[in-house]
């Protein structure tokens, strides 16, 4: 019973935070892209434009929803549901703080303490592609279909190097539990410094996994008229939008957890603070790191142009995969020598 209550509170809290952040991420992205292009961006709705996000959400809710006459209605509706649920469920295993004592109870600051956290995430993110592929197929539109196909091809090519670069981390940590992996990275022993190549391959692969530029081929606007979500409108389209941005949050959180020390604040225990402050700083450290990763995502988007399809495949199979494999070997040798 107690477990249920605590879990429910955690779920509601995390879901609320993620959904709010997603809405505001869209706003942040518009603002940052504007700054990079020497523009100002949306600044009319509310102070500094901060109410733009609620306005956008409201607009999506009251929009007319159009389903193409020849679409497969069931799959057409199912696809955004898959996308959004997978995107939101993945965040559950990411620890956003150390275990804290609250009202005399030990509470782990993660929604679900799964002992195979990494496997859970890898499995679910691969499921997410079904949303994209099915939406492309069910729309009965050639551009959507192409977008869906590209998405699945892209996923297969990058999932491999993503998995392999995670293996390096697992070898160093010796566990699949995400909070254990974070605990291993105390001080500045971040995995990003221990396996820099694995870090780079993982980051690139997560860009490809989340369909963000420079790998946003499934929704390449100039080529595919919006790609897999061409035939979606209203809140179904909003669901895809939500899924894309919550995927961004999830993968940012994952990059932070696996490679950038998670909630670890370097040398925090040397400051001699009380336990309460330590927990607060740790959670804040995690949030800051994720925020910086999210900014990095947007920054990259407005810096690097989209890859051509053959370039994408070349990079995936001829560069990323050998690199991830080489990293695996080097890491194995390193682990053998230093432990």
């Amino acid at each position, binding site marked *: 019973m107690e477990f249920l209550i605590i879990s429910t509170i955690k779920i509601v809290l995390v879901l609320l935070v993620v959904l709010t952040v997603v809405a505001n991420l869209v706003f942040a992205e518009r603002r*940052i892209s504007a*700054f*990079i*292009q*020497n*523009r*100002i961006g949306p600044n009319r709705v509310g102070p500094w434009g901060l109410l733009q996000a609620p306005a956008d959400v409201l607009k999506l809710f009251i929009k007319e929803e159009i389903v193409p006459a020849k679409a497969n209605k069931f799959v057409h509706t199912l696809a955004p549901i898959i996308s959004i649920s997978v995107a939101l469920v993945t965040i559950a295993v990411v620890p956003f703080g150390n275990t804290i004592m609250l009202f005399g109870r030990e509470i782990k600051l993660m929604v679900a303490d799964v002992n195979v956290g990494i496997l859970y995430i890898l499995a679910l993110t691969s499921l997410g592609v079904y949303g994209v592929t099915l939406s492309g197929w069910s729309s009965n539109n050639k551009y959507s279909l192409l977008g869906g196909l590209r998405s699945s091809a892209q996923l297969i090519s990058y999932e491999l190097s993503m998995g392999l670069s995670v293996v390096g981390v697992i070898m160093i940590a010796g566990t699949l539990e995400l909070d254990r992996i974070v605990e291993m990275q105390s001080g500045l022993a971040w995995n990003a410094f221990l396996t820099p190549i694995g870090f*780079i391959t993982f980051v690139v692969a997560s860009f490809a996994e989340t369909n963000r530029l420079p790998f946003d081929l499934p929704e390449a606007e100039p080529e595919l008229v919006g790609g897999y979500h061409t035939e979606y409108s209203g809140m179904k389209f909003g669901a895809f939008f939500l899924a894309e941005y919550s995927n961004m949050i999830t993968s940012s959180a994952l990059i932070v957890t696996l490679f950038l020390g998670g909630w670890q604040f370097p040398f925090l225990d040397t400051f001699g603070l009380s336990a309460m402050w330590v927990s607060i700083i740790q959670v804040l450290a995690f949030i800051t790191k994720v925020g910086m990763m999210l900014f990095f995502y947007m*920054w*990259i988007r*407005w*810096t*690097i142009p989209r890859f051509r399809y053959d370039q994408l495949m070349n990079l995936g199979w001829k560069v990323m995969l050998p690199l991830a494999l080489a990293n695996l070997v080097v890491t194995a040798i390193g682990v053998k020598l230093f432990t």
Partner: protein
Amino acid sequence: MPTNGETARQVRIKDLTLWQRTYIPEIVKGMVLTFKQILRPKFTRQYPEERWNPPSSFRGRPVLVEEEGVERCVACGLCARVCPALAIEVQGSETDLEKERYPIKFEINMLRCIFCGFCEEACPEEAIVMSDEYELVFTDPEKAIYGKDRLLMSADRLRPRLEFLRRAR
């Protein structure tokens, strides 16, 4: 690699150095560039608050010059004749004033006007000139036909344009 001030030229993959071919340093360079853009001043004009004042050579909506409460126009009809869009309609009548003739009706259909400024050039009296107003809003095609009430504008207000015309002609 094209850098600031240098025009873009084609670079082949085989010409790249090994350093450039590793990709990452070049991406970092690009990211430094885009980050610098964030800190630079913005070009955007915050329009309704921050207006643009056109130079005197700007051709805004055509207006009739009004001096001492009377328009300069003598209703010769040259503007209507020269107007390529057939936007102007003039009906003259007689008056006791020195100019003897005046337009009893002068209408410009602002939906037809193309802001070419031919009327201004053709006018022998410098009575119709292009003003500096560029905000034209109407909710009804009928309201787009500007009569004398909306076309008259005092010569003081049009001084920069009149001086420009004197210089340019």
